[in-house]
């Protein structure tokens, strides 16, 4: 059972990393490709074909698929806090890449998010009470 737990935990960490990075960079490129205003409804579609926005959308598709894969074994109440480490990544990327100031208030917020993620990821297994579907073939 401990081998099974270690396997799940490793898989969870890998996919949580993909979920976080694809979300952060997907949103970053999407924002970069967005014009200041969307005047007509058709522009909500055409804006998605701006090169930066397209890259953003592709990354968000990766985000969707990796999140669905992660949720196929991990609890929602585990995935939500753990993947919120993306907010920290956005703040740090703003400082490193765009030279934005990180105020005391933001550092406090970063600290709280990191503490929350540590509590959830360190204090509970990714999966609690999943009823295993009877039809799933390759079980252990």
């Amino acid at each position, binding site marked *: 059972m401990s081998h099974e737990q270690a396997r799940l935990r490793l898989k969870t960490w890998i996919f949580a990393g993909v979920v976080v990075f694809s979300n952060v960079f997907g949103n970053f490129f999407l924002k970069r490709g967005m014009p200041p205003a969307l005047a007509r409804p058709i522009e909500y579609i055409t804006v998605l074909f701006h090169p930066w926005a397209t890259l953003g959308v592709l990354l968000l598709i990766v985000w969707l698929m990796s999140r669905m894969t992660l949720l196929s*074994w991990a609890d929602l109440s585990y995935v*939500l806090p753990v993947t919120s480490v993306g907010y*920290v990544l956005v703040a740090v990327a703003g400082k490193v890449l765009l030279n934005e100031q990180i105020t005391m208030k933001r550092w406090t*917020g970063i600290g709280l998010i990191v503490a929350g993620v540590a*509590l959830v990821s360190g*204090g509970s297994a990714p999966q609690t009470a999943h009823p295993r579907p009877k039809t799933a073939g390759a079980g252990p």
Partner: protein
Amino acid sequence: MKWLLIGIIVASTTAGEVLQAAGMRRHGEIRDFRPGAIGRALTVLVRNRFVIAALAAMAVSFFAYLGLLTIAELSFAVPVTAITYVLETVLAKYILKEHVNWLRWAGASLVICGVALVSL
């Protein structure tokens, strides 16, 4: 207009993510990552009613968010959407029947406060 969009975003994100979790749980753990197996999993998932409903709700949320970004600052949009964390954790307990122990409640609460501080 701003608050209407926020209401739509919060409701559709919450519904979409809970439905996504419910659909993927019904599917069961994905273990095989070879291309053929992924293709087979996708053909099963596109017929999963929960997954279809989740994708529809998330599409609504995505376009409403694009709309919000054109009339509001990111620093306003992000903290307000943190409310979905509260709603989804509650729904995870009562609808998805997950065991949300006190560590998860505490962690989710810290994250919500943190998101608000980082973005406000």
